[in-house]
């Protein structure tokens, strides 16, 4: 009985919040009728990232995503033209506060509950590209088939910040371009993992963000652990961005006895678009912890920091991530 009450409490609170904030969303394009059973879905919250969308869609379509559900938080850069009349995209629009909705989490939980239940769901930012074992020859659908067969309903990944050899402002990105052409470097070492007690999630910090933006307070560096691929059930909910998901078992990267495959989430934040973004976000103050992270970015960018360092590694593919110990193949033969 105690367990039941706790379950209801834990499951219903985020759901109530999700429905409360779900009212902010107005459907502009609703193609959700074409979603079929077992389709792989992607859920995205964005603001003014139209330039990234064409390649983002190509990347995930190729790897088996069947439908994209966007939450457009007041973009004014022609995002709608980017989506066009693609039959596999649905768009919700809102002008409501990003911060109020717990940095998009409530909106996502709402859409995930409504459309994602029973599906494998990716919850992404437009600058995140999921890399998984054998990602050059196998699709995400094949990965999720394997995970379901093994009885696992989530896929753990670590975020790798990618950057170029030049300053951030010189890393110019054109729509439709592979961001790896612009930003092929990353930090192969310098990560710290620790398990936190409340939700049992692996808290990973490090990489270029800790090194460049938080060298004096590394413990304040943003988390790099992400569980973006989940087989959604009605009572599931994201707690803190995609870093923590409830129930706790979804935060477990591996099986109880052996290793499961894990992935890397290539994160292309540091493009020339970044500067504008940071300035705008500092005006809005709509980000986590009083936009502490963004204040740091602004400091770093004022002096035209080059993120590249002689210790940086050139990205060569998923096999490289496995050999660096950033990714696991598990027993997925």
């Amino acid at each position: 009985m105690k367990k039941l009450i706790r379950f209801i409490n834990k499951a219903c609170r985020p759901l109530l919040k999700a429905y409360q904030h779900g009212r902010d969303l107005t459907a502009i394009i609703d193609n959700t009728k074409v979603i079929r059973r077992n389709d792989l879905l992607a859920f995205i919250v964005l603001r003014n990232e139209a330039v990234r969308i064409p390649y983002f869609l190509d990347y995930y379509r190729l790897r088996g995503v069947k439908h994209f559900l966007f939450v457009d938080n007041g973009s004014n850069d022609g995002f709608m033209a980017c989506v066009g009349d693609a039959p596999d995209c649905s768009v919700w629009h809102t002008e409501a506060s990003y911060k109020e909705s717990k940095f998009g989490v409530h909106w996502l939980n709402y859409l995930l509950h409504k459309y994602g239940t029973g599906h494998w769901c990716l919850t992404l930012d437009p600058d995140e590209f999921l890399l998984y074992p054998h990602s050059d020859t196998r699709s995400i659908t094949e990965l999720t088939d394997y995970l379901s067969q093994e009885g696992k309903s989530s896929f753990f990944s670590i975020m790798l910040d990618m950057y170029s050899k030049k300053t951030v402002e010189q890393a110019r990105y054109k729509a439709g371009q592979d961001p790896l052409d612009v930003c092929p470097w990353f930090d192969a070492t310098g990560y710290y993992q620790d398990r936190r007690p409340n939700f049992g999630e692996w808290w990973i910090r490090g990489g270029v963000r800790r090194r460049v933006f938080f060298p004096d307070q590394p413990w304040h560096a943003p988390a790099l652990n992400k569980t973006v691929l989940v087989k959604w059930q009605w009572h599931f909910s994201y707690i803190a961005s995609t870093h923590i998901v409830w129930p706790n078992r979804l935060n477990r990267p591996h099986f109880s006895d052996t290793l499961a495959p894990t992935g890397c989430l290539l994160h292309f934040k540091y493009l020339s678009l970044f500067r504008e973004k940071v300035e705008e976000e500092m005006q809005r103050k709509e980000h986590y912890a009083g936009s502490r992270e963004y204040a740091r970015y602004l400091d770093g960018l004022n002096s035209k920091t080059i993120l590249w360092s002689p210790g940086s590694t050139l990205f060569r593919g998923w096999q490289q991530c496995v050999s660096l110990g950033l990714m696991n193949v598990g027993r997925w033969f």
Partner: protein
Amino acid sequence: MVKLGFILLAHNEPANLLRLISRLVVKDELVVVHWDKKNPLDVQALAKETLAANIQERVLFARRVAVDWGRWSVVEATLAGLEVLESSGEDFNYVVLLSGSDYLIKPINTLKGFLAQHDGKEYIECVDPDVDPWVVQGLVKERFLHHHWFSWRDQRTLFEWTLRTQKKLGLKRKVPDNLQPHFGSQWWVLTWQTLRQVLAMSRRKRIRRFFKTTWVPDELFFQTLVAAIVGKENITGSGLTFYHFTHEGRPLVFYNDHFEFLARQDHFFARKLSPHATELRNQLDAVTDASASTNLAIPAVASKHLDSYQHFIAVQWRGMPGKRVIGRQVDAWYGDLEWNNTPYFVILSYSDADLEPLRNALNAINGLCCYGELFHGGHVDYALPGKAHPFYPEHSPALRDMKRPNFLVDLIQANPDQLVGFVVRLPSGNEMEKIVLFDPQANVVMVSPDEHYLSEDSDKLDWSCAFDNMIMGDHIAEARRTGKNFYHLKAINHVISSDSINHLTGHLSALHSNFFKTGLKLNVI
């Protein structure tokens, strides 16, 4: 010439099914498709639309049964396919049972040549449960000794309850007609002659009733009947379909990158291919097209070549040696040192020793790299120009102090093929002085002061020397307690003699060449 009939059991992915059909029909082969009644798609119409005319006339469709995994309906669907073959009035040498997710990995003509060579053999896995349990996990004899009315997948509680009750009551079934139950993979290649007898036997009420309430009859029915009909000498004990079950008893799935693995196998078909593995199917098509008439040297019993799979599983069981596993840590205290398998050395010294001659001597040797007091104080004291780690600048010790063992491992990795070392002066005030006593990769060098408590020109006690002795004494005792072997040096008046230095450099350079130059490098697989 050998004439073949095929029975295909499929429940989804019609495109892959039709692709398989068009690969199977080369000349006069007859293909019977059983399409699961649960899937409402009209596959017959689809076949009419997409298949070429000459192939279409060699495809027949069986009476549709709603197939439940692990139940009699699987056998019923197969029997329905056999009935179609029988009523077609044609005569076959062999009939092959396949599923829609299987694929051809050798040319059909090679298969025909193979079957002609070993005419009359039955290619079916037939295992007597008294000899070999065969089943990877779960029920074995219970499958036929008790009634199973419910599906294990959908009605698990009822399934288990009925089984438990029967066991408690001691109810056991008798196998009819003195049949000896045999197990084996569902997929077989059998002679038409035998199959006709099987079909005749399957019409006996007793047999049908018995198998209807067994569990997973598709791995029992044909195996048992064939063992009863055919003599042991004609049963080869393995089918011609390559398949493998993982340790959890689930079938291995093949993806686009498995072409070479499949090409190595002796078998003619592979089970099961991922529905999205189009590239793999293309590659296999190229093989089966090219060498249509080559007579491959295939043994009478097709055996699996699993070396690469078994190697993979052995390596992946607990993670790769010497590689960090994201999301797993046995002891958080050690951080990444837990995964490190490159040796390093530590000079644990008392506070006043003059270590510069020692460090200079070590750094003069190729392959040794002795840093200063890395973990001490408000800046990272690399004390080796040009050898600082680019991610951990000297002026930001916070990055180092967030997790000191991780910093150490990063530094070791940044100096490949070098034996890395550093100095810790006691008392250091951080955990590294203890961690190195427990880390098997750490080679500890203790530098302790001489035992001159009294200075020479006066009879006063030298307090700092006594204190250093006490600290080092404690630490040495601790090292002995943990069972750590260490190298002990004495500094006379804070100076280490050149003999001792030479001895130590010899020792460490031997360690370096042992590990990095000879085959002792453990982290290479």
